[in-house]
């Protein structure tokens, strides 16, 4: 089944295959998102009620056991997943919108604003990402909102650079000249001709970033710089269960698996979207 030996029909098969794969992962992601959105309804118990025997082993009543305060772990994992996924999506939305806007404006208008914004992004890139994020989060005194701000400050330059370089190359293309000649304003050119064309690469970058961002956000929470207890968030749940690793490992393992699955689903979707949008896949 070496595809190199299949010559004529390969592209079509490949494209169809990617299409089916994409559909499958979209459904998988949709299921994950349903679990996230309806986490409150899916919880078997109140995630913050300390009403059970502490540190029960997993059983039929408590599939993931209970934590040291006697809270149902499954409910906490579900709510924690909701917190992690929603805050990650918010973070990715912020950096995508802000980075793209900055990049497009820089690329399109150039001049002093361009130089200024690009120097600011150089400064952000001069620091190793997580170290800078740690410092900002520490400066802002932790909290989920501040962790999101910290990661946003560190991550937007990547989007700005992609958007800027794409805009620069589009700006001098014939159809943009034609649009300008026919009297389109800058706003019209940006919204009608530039944004739709840079949408693909930006979308792929954003999709592939969701997994990484989720891990980094959870990492900050794990260090105590993100969501604060008693808020259920996967990173801080694992951090508070750390001391019980030896005796009650499920306190760590269930939130760990939840975050792994969520990251895996988003990574699979991101990879497939990239393959699907990659023009090389339909040509070669």
């Amino acid at each position, binding site marked *: *089944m*070496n*595809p190199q030996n299949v010559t004529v029909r390969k592209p079509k098969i490949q494209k169809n295959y990617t299409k089916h794969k994409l559909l499958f992962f979209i459904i998988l992601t949709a299921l994950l998102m349903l679990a996230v959105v309806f986490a409150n309804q899916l919880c078997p118990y109140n995630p913050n009620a300390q009403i059970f025997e502490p540190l029960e082993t997993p059983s039929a009543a408590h599939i993931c056991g209970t934590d040291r305060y006697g809270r149902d772990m499954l409910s906490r994992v579900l709510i924690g997943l909701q917190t992690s996924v929603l805050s990650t999506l918010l973070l990715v939305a912020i950096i995508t919108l802000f980075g793209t806007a900055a990049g497009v404006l820089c690329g399109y208008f150039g001049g002093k604003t361009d130089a200024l914004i690009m120097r600011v992004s*150089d*400064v952000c890139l*001069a*620091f*190793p*990402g*997580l*170290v*800078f*994020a*740690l*410092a900002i*989060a*520490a*400066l802002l005194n932790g909290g989920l909102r501040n962790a999101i701000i910290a990661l946003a400050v560190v991550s937007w330059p990547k989007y700005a650079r992609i958007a800027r370089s794409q805009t620069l190359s589009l700006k001098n293309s014939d159809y943009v000249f034609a649009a300008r000649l026919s009297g389109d304003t800058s706003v019209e050119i940006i919204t009608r001709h530039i944004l739709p064309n840079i949408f693909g690469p930006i979308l792929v970058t954003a999709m592939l970033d969701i*997994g990484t961002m989720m*891990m980094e956000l*959870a*990492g900050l929470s*794990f*260090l*105590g*710089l993100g969501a604060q207890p008693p808020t259920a968030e996967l*990173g801080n749940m*694992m*951090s508070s269960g*750390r001391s019980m*690793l*030896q005796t009650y*490992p499920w306190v*760590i*393992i269930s939130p*760990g698996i939840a*975050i*792994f699955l969520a*990251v*895996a689903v988003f*990574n*699979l979707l991101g990879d497939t979207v990239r393959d699907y949008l990659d023009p090389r896949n339909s040509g070669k």
Partner: protein
Amino acid sequence: MSNYVIKRLLQMIPILFVITFLSFGMMRLAGSDAVLAQMQNTGVVMSKEVIENARAELGLDKPFLTQYFIWLINILHGDMGVSYISNKEVFPTFISKLPATLLLTALSIGLTVIVSIPLGILSAVKQNRFTDYFIRFCSFIGNSVPNFFAALLLMYFFSIRLNIFPVISRDITLKNAVLPAITLSIAMSAKYMRQVRATVLDELSKDYVVGARARGVKFSVTLTKSVLKSSFVTLITLMTLSIGSLLGGTAIVESIFMWDGVGKLAVDAINMRDYPIIQAYVMWMAIIYVCVNLITDLSYHLLDPRIRIGGDKK
């Protein structure tokens, strides 16, 4: 070549200014200074005049920029102030913890190279066979596990269940470094296996490979003599680009394994709001990062004639 080196070194100067300025400004923004911190730590309430005097003594009443330059000159003398918590000098404390982190970083990069390059090449050579799928599957798993979860799992299996490695790696020995280094290299290897595979596949699809095969050159010879040689530069780039994420990643892993390096120092300092230590950490990590990037750029220049020409054009 020497022109290029000089140009790059000159470009470093503004970057270093920005790094130090931000590190300094960060502490000011935190709204805390040595006098207030001392007051909070000792629990002694000082009168306004005493605070003013103490500030004047430390030069904290001078304008912001003046303070910055005084601070900068002190740094050049190796004086970064004292820790709010332990009252020890920051710079010696930081330097004493640095070797542990560098050892850990070097070990995990070494491990990543040993794991990801052979597996990546194997995966490319066996494209779309079982071996390839299996390696890609492993790399996918490695990419989706947060490092703190990987650390805790490794700790659970190897330290608690199998009792091979110690749970707490407080002493800086090679045996204690194994688990933290593995943790750090899991995510990195996973990422680089993919990249190595893509780079080698790209190289394998070039005409000269077909040409060599047509002339009857053994595939193993083409692979080792031509393909790997020309993939080398890309691979080095990828490795050095990862140093940035590695420097930050060590913070979490060090604090889980109690590995006594700068990452753990920083996390502890953050939890206790010990700003002088955080400041030293951010500043030195950024300087190390910038230097590593510089060395990488310079080494390309030596390695790859194509970049040499392109670089001079800039």
